[in-house]
């Protein structure tokens, strides 16, 4: 039992996590590419047109995965926040910082593709659909996290403050979603829902799932890659970083202090 716990905490050290992430991200990137190509093939070249929405429905193959990922990534950030606040590990804060930009990007993408879907379907670039509105608020939560962690100079304080914010935000997301849903149904006659649809053809569903997985693998690959850069910056005073091959290899044009 002790050994097992020891094993988990082994990777809590940035020094040990760095090479692990370095070995893992290419695999996730490859998976993302493969799944993405499969999903796109299925969604764009095999799946038939929708009865109601024609070819325009194909936007869901990026819209839904982007929405999913924006929420999954936020949950992941909250998870790392809990770890970081409980065990006070440096790496947890770094993982949160590594995840946030991708999450914000997917939230933005969800809004963008949502608008492009809404315009031909419902005639407006923006509808106050419960899901879209919640997504907008989630986007602001991401921006808030990024702004707060960038504004605080001390990295440890920034990590912990960000952690608290991510946690408070995560706990609030269901509340926010519920209140927006309530607000939406009371104020709109017909329910304009981007997710309401006739039962989907098998191919459409599969394509959407494949794209969702592809986006997930992409997010993990990106997070692992990004956290490596963060580790390098934060641990630049250490010996093990100085001894890394990518660092020790000085380019020929570098000036020498005389």
């Amino acid at each position: 039992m002790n050994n097992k716990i020891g094993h988990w905490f082994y990777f809590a050290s940035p020094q040990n996590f760095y090479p692990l992430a370095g070995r893992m991200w290419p695999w996730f990137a490859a998976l993302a590419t493969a799944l993405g190509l499969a999903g796109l093939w299925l969604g764009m070249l095999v799946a038939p047109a929708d009865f109601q929405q024609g070819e325009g429905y194909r936007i869901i193959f990026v819209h839904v995965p982007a929405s999913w990922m924006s929420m999954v990534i936020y949950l992941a950030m909250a998870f790392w926040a809990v770890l970081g606040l409980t065990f006070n590990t440096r790496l947890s804060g770094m993982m949160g910082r590594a995840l946030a930009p991708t999450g914000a990007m997917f939230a933005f993408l969800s809004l963008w593709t949502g608008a492009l879907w809404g315009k031909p379907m419902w005639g407006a670039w923006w509808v106050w659909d419960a899901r879209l509105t919640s997504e907008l608020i989630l986007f602001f939560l991401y921006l808030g996290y990024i702004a707060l962690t960038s504004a605080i100079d001390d990295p440890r304080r920034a990590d912990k403050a960000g952690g608290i914010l991510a946690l408070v935000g995560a706990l609030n997301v269901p509340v926010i979603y519920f209140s927006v849903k309530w607000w939406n149904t009371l104020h709109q006659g017909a329910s304009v829902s981007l997710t309401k649809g006739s039962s989907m053809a098998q191919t459409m569903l599969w394509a959407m799932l494949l794209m969702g997985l592809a986006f997930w693998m992409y997010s993990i690959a990106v997070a692992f890659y990004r956290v490596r850069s963060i580790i390098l910056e934060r641990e630049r005073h250490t010996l093990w970083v100085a001894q890394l091959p990518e660092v020790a290899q000085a380019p020929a044009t570098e000036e020498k202090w005389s």
Partner: protein
Amino acid sequence: MSAFVAIVRRDLVLALRRKNEVITSVFFFVVVAALFPLGIGPEMNTLRLVAPGILWVGALLASMLSLGRMFAADHADGTLEQMALSPTSLPLLVAAKILAHWLLSGLPLVLLAPILGLQFDLSADALWVLTLSLLIGTPLLSLIGAIGAALTLGVRGGDVLLSLLVLPLYVPALVFGAGAVQAQISGLGASAHLSILVAMALVAAVFSPWASSAALRIALE
């Protein structure tokens, strides 16, 4: 308990010496309530429709303006550190500060709301629900805002950053607060909205002082 009362009293006395906080909130609320009709037009039917939202957003923004001051002064002169080091539990002291903030920035808005509501030709029962929703809602806003204020203590770009952090978290309060008034106007009855608002306020009353003091300790490290 006596520490709690002492902090509330202290904050009130200090703030009332400068009177700044109360006046800023009140003034902002009044100006916003006056500006919107000027922007929208004097059509009474329209104004009656948008009144709950406008008044609630006005109160929300007015309350948000003064959040930055909640901990800043005490942080600057070292009192906050003393509070953190004292044997009294920090969440209790933070709760006291939040109460003081509400008394100074929230309660005046609650008292002013019915008067401003008259400008929008709200009926008596709508005015009553408006006041009640703000009475429950403004403490909720102070509680949520305290977390943001604690997180951004002493940080560059504090006030704008604070607004960005806190506004998404304010949405449920706004939805149910303004929604209560609208429900009353449309005849559906505000009890459901108000109950949910009370529930949120109670949860925040327990959770926020604890989260805020955690954030303060991080800021004080």
